[in-house]
Every structure is written in C-alpha cells, then in structure tokens.
C-alpha cells in the first residue's frame, strides 16, 4: 500500500514553527532538563530548525531561498543528528532525561517526514480527471472566449429612466 502523505507544505511549515518555538521556549523546562547541556541542545535544535524554516521556499517562508525538498533533507539530517548527540558525546549515561527527549523528538520529526508530501501539495484527494470528463462546461472557453458579460453604466441608466 502506498504511504499516504497528507501533510502539504503549508501544514509542514505550521509544524516547523510550532515545534521550533516550543523547543526554544517551554519544552526544556517541561521535561526538566533546563540548564543542562541536554536542554541547550534541544533549544539549539529548535532555533536552527525555525531558522532555516524562515529561509525555505514554501508558503510560510519569509525569504524563499531553500527549496522544500532540501528543507525536508535538512529535517532528516537534523533529526538524526539530534538523536545521535547524547550517545556520541556520552551524556546518555547520565540518565534517561539526557537522551529520551532527543530520541523522542527525532522520532516525531521522522514520522512527520514520512507523511509529508515532498511535492508540497499534500492531501488533495479529488479526481480531477473524473471532473474533467463529467464537466459539461468548458472552463477555458468560459474564461478566454466570448464578449464581456456586463454592460457598464447600465444600472445608472435604469435609475435615471425610472
């Protein structure tokens, strides 16, 4: 079965900013790692993530520089790096709180990536071909051919005549 990928680029952006802000602000305190290196790592991850999101070329980007697919690649790399950090530098030995948040966040990010549509279009589940076949109207003709559908000034004429 093909994996459903309903997250379009806008919704992905929403998650980027929401999670990025959460990581930067209240999350470290909530999981009680504020003030530790683990807390700083989470904050840094949040800041970097939100940072490159503002530079991504998608509906919620401020400066549209980084292509969406590249952004998704950064997400994946960043998630794996975050998960690996506690193990690489040895801080995992200091207790559950020093690595579980990292792994949990990385898992969340990777799951989000699995259901994000890389083309950005997301959950469009209509059958355009069926619509085209069933349509008894010709959109192109309606838009581009034929005369103006209104007579300018015709309301004032009527009012004057009345």
């Amino acid at each position, binding site marked *: 079965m093909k994996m459903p990928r309903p997250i379009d680029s806008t919704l992905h952006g929403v998650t980027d900013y929401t999670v990025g802000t959460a990581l930067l602000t209240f999350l470290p305190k909530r999981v009680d790692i504020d003030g530790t290196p683990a807390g700083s790592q989470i904050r840094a991850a949040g800041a970097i993530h939100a940072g490159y999101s503002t530079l991504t070329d998608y509906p919620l980007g401020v400066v549209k520089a980084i292509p969406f697919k590249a952004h998704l690649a950064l997400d994946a790399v960043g998630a794996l790096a975050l998960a690996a950090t506690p193990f690489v530098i040895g801080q995992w030995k200091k207790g559950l709180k020093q690595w579980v948040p990292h792994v949990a966040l990385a898992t969340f990010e990777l799951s989000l990536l699995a259901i994000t549509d890389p083309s950005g279009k997301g959950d469009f589940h*209509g059958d355009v071909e069926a619509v085209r076949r069933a349509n008894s109207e010709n959109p192109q003709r309606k838009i581009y051919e034929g005369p103006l559908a*209104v007579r300018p000034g015709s309301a004032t004429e009527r009012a004057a005549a009345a």
Partner: protein
Amino acid sequence: MRANVWSGRNTVQVENVPDPKILNENDAIVRITSTAICGSDLHLYDGYVPTMKRGDILGHEFMGEVVEKGPGVRNLEVGDRVVVPFPIACGNCWSCKHELYSVCENTNPNSGLAEKLFGHATAGIFGYSHLTGGYAGGQAEYARVPYADVNQIKIEDDLPDEKVLFLSDILPTGWFGADLCDIEGGEVIAVFGAGPVGQLAMASALMMGAERVIAIDGYEYRLAMARNKAGATDVIDFSVDPDIVEQLKELTGGRGPDAVIDAVGMEASHGHGALHAIDRVKQANRMESDRGHALRDAILSCRPGGIVSVIGVYGGLMDKFPTGALMNKGLQLRAGQAHVQRYMKLLYEHIKNGDIDPSFVITHRLGLDQAPDGFETFKHKQDDCVKVVLNP
C-alpha cells in the same frame, strides 16, 4: 433523497437522507433543479466554522420547482419556479421591515449559540452550521423553504437555470458589496479576490458607473476572467509582486482607490512574510480564527476618506487590525451578509434586460454525485475552476 453531507474536515459525501417535510404552515418544499458550491462552503469544508455535525447537508445557493406548500403559504403555487435566497427572513420583524434581511430576528432557532459568539443572533442560513440555525442545505434533491412567502423570487420566463441561479447568493452579494461603496460615477474601485463573488462585485461596480475596477488575485486564470468577462480595467497579480498596497498606489496616481471591496474573507492566502507565517500557524493551532490580510491591506490601501466594503465571510477574531489607519484616514468600514431579498427583484430585471449575465462565472457543471470531487477541485483551484454548479 440524495444529498451532499459534511462528514468531517475536508470530507463531504453524497448519501441517502430522508426527504424534507413541512414543519410549519408557512413552509414550502422545493424540488431542486440547480445548486452550486460557494466559496464560503470552503470554510465549512476546511473545518474553520464551529458547530458542524456529521450529516449536515451543505449548500445555500439553489433553485427549483415548488412541489408542496403548507396551508399558510399565500404567494406561491405548486409548480412555480423559484430561486431561494440564502438568508432566511421572516419578513415581519423590525430588521426585515427595514430591509436588513440577513439579520432577521426570528429565524434562528439556535439564537443562544450565535449570541455567545457575536453578541446577537442573526438570520438563519441554509446549510451553514448550527450557529446559523442548523437548517438543511440545498446541495440535495429537495429542500424545505421556511417563511416561503418571503424567501423566494418567482421566475416567470424561460431563462435557463444558469442565468438566474446566482440570484440566490453571489450576485446580490457582489452587488451589495458595490452598493456599500456609494458609487456615483467616475470612481476607482479595487476588489480583493477574483472568485465568483469578486467577479460579480466588479461587474456590479461597473454597472453602477465606476470608471475603473482593479481586480486583485494570485491566480492568472481568475484575473483573466476578471478582465475578459467582468470588465476589470486593471489587474494585480500578487503571486508576481506581493506588495499590493504599493501597486494600488501606482495604479491610482498615488491617491489610493476610492473604495475597496474585500471579497476574500477569513482564509486569505496572499499574505507574505513573517506576518502571514504567524497568522497561518496561529490559525492552524486554533489561536486565531480569521486570517485578515485582505482586510488589513484593504484598509491600508484605501484612500483617506474612502470606504472599505467587507463581503468576504469572517467567523471570529483576527489579530493586528489596523485601527490607526482606519481612524486617522477617516475610512468608513461597512460590512454584512448580503440582504439578498432586498436586491432580488432589481437584479432579476437587470438580467432580463441583458445588462449582466451572471452565468459567466460557471466553469464546471457536474452531477450532484460528483460533489466531493467538485469540492476538491474548487478548493485547490484545479482545472481553471472558478464556480461549480451541481445538477441533482
């Protein structure tokens, strides 16, 4: 009967539901021959309007033939061909007597709900959530029309459905938007949003004597329709250059348009930059219900002393409303759901006279059973879709 019902966010389904019945002596039952999907239906589809329930029949633009009437109905006979306005009015309260039909005081049996949100209840509306009364809508084979003496216009010639269907909603709404601009002749009117309502607002403004009409949108095909059919004299494509306020200044010799019509509403998509990002995130997290870029830009771009006319649908609250610009530039802010019953007869005359052919907005005509695909195509603006009409 078959009807298109709301089945959750981004989902509608055509199902078998019971046929409507006369509940009050002044009801009529209409067999629907044509109905349409409205831009405001998308707010329901996208899940931004609260109080929707699974099984609610959607649709508030419909017309057809009277097949049954209650004993209290005087102005209609079985067999009459009628177009039904989307706001349900009683005709007798103070508001109705003053032609403020869309704020009728008597037709919303869920007034208590609406009062909590808006301060007062407003008229019932067909197929538009339980906030507006929970009336079954018109994307179906039959519909119950309450207060039938007031809520219809009889079509007594053989104009095809497509020419008169839009008397139900979008033509009076576009007209109302232009009417609020107090056009006397020679004005420059800017219209945010080149969807069906925007198109008809542009056409109405021209009929009323505006000298220039500027269409603002992000889709080239809708701007093409505005130019070719609605008579727009200028267009702004914000997907090319997002600074709408600046472009409007240029087009008007630095003055700004005399009046601005907001035919966009709460799901504005043209915002750019940080403010847009913040709005989108907040709306998705349900921290803000309305995205108001169109309204913001309308207020910022309107010339001092001008009029901002709001016919795009909003539901709740928006952030960052430019109160300073509004007050100091001395703008008039006018808004409303169109008082359709006020304009139906006049607009029917204009259609009969050939002054306007509202069917120009129709790009798709489908059977009722294709409503779900129709919704998706309309929502995502596929296949040059502007307006979808459904035939049950």
